[in-house]
């Protein structure tokens, strides 16, 4: 009864060899594909700092909704209660920048939502509406500016 044992042993060896060969070719194919895509291996070089970073291109797994220094990085929204309801409902059609550059009272934000629902295809926000309006009215409330503000943020420079 040695022959069947030998046969099984040979079959095992062939299978092992097959696995090794497959793994080898998979690795080679992986390297070739990588070089095709990135021949200069730039992915291993330090990333240059981009001046325009408001729209980062991708996020490592788990960093998608990262908050740093009280700012939701992906959108620029201030951290606070209702943040994710705002992110999920207010950045589908337009950029978060259209929200964050504006300042309105509760009434104003409410009216803006109503206008978007009536004319811009915004959906019914259901119980999220109160959460969203509260968030916006809290963190994006108007400041009193008077009839004319002082000139500020001046970068002084020597004029030749």
């Amino acid at each position, binding site marked *: 009864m040695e022959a069947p044992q030998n046969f099984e042993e040979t079959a095992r060896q062939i299978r092992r060899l097959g696995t090794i060969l497959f793994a080898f070719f998979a690795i080679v194919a992986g390297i070739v594909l990588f070089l095709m895509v990135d021949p200069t291996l730039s992915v291993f070089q330090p990333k240059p700092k981009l001046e325009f970073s408001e729209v980062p291109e991708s996020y490592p797994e788990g960093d998608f909704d990262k908050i740093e220094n009280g700012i939701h990085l992906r959108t620029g929204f201030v951290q606070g209660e209702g943040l994710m309801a705002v992110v999920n409902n207010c950045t589908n059609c337009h950029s978060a920048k259209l929200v964050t550059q504006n300042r309105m009272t509760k009434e104003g934000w409410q009216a803006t939502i109503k206008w978007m629902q009536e004319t811009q295809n915004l959906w019914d926000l259901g119980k999220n509406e109160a959460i969203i309006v509260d968030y916006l009215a809290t963190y994006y409330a108007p400041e009193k500016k008077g009839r004319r503000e002082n000139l500020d943020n001046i970068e002084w420079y020597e*004029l030749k």
Partner: protein
Amino acid sequence: MDRRKFTSSLSFVAMGSILGVPVVFGKQIPMGYIPLGLQDPDPFELFNKDKQMVVLNDRPWNMEAQAHLLDDKVTPNKYMFIRNNGKIPENVDAEQWRLTVDGEAAKQSKSYTLQELKTKFPTYTYQLTLECGGNGRSEFNPPAKGNQWTVGAVSCALWTGIRLRDVLEDVGITSKAVYIGYYAADTHLSGDLSKEPISRGVPIEKALQEETLIAFQMNGEDIPLAHGYPLRLVCGGWPASASGKWLERIRVRDKVHDGAKMTGSSYRIPCDPVAPGEKVPDEKMCIIESMPVKSLITYPKTGALLKKGQPLSLRGHAWAGELEVKQMQYSIDFGSSWQDCTLDRPANRLAWQHFSAAITFPKEGYYEVWAKATDRDGNSQPMVLPGWNPKGYLNNACHRIAVKVR
């Protein structure tokens, strides 16, 4: 990883595998062209804009200049503000492009190819001031919603095209014609293709003016995509939203055009003045026509430090919508006294005018240089904010720069 490097070394097959769909006609894509799906989100590169331009919004794209960037007499593309209401059209094919003229007050419906428009009608070039109706909105109190433009949503480029008047005459309009409305190829932000992002227009009198163009060139070249390639209506001196980009259709109306952003409170101000913050019903809001008198100091940039006795050469531009600017003045004492600037005549009607002055400061200290233009009808720029309006339009308050003498 650098996207440009990444895509330049990619085959179209590989591009297809990244996009998740094959790149149809991949072989026909010109070398160096990057499909929109892979495009670098750097708007300065995308639109050939200077890095000092300020992005207000990236969906839709809205970008403005700073005062000192607008120093050129003719605004180059790199310093020209971008105001979009919807998505910029993709895959514009100038060969297939058609302009259709129709409407209740048109004698027929007629359609033209670009080639027909260029060869059938005489071509004119004018320098035309285009200012966003909401330029200066950021200063209003209480604040008005929308893009918070500061001072840089204005330009004065050279536009080349044919007169809208000539095309309307070729089509034929009836005595019932009151307004024209434009329709364009941009699409609504919501993705709803049945919705127009913007469809505005002008009264027939403005449409028939010599300077109202259907333009196909800006500054001697094809109009850049972000500014309306291949065809743009240009109505100088009016809110720039009247100058429809990516123009496909002109409708001759027997009533005031009622397209998107013509009605409600869009591009309208209270018919009668109101107190700041007052609620104004839609029926009390009137359409903005000619833009008001305004000016901008484009040299020096705010923040100049001068030595005692060092003279300052001031310069900039002034404009007044349909009117000419007749006087330009500056003040270095917060509006107590005003001195005249040298003011040039416009290159043509509806072009901005250049001003200059040589200023000497009496002693050391902090100064603000204020600029004030006065139009032919005697209207001047206010030193504080002009009449408050719910949407924050038409802020023509004096432009100010800060100067220190040491």
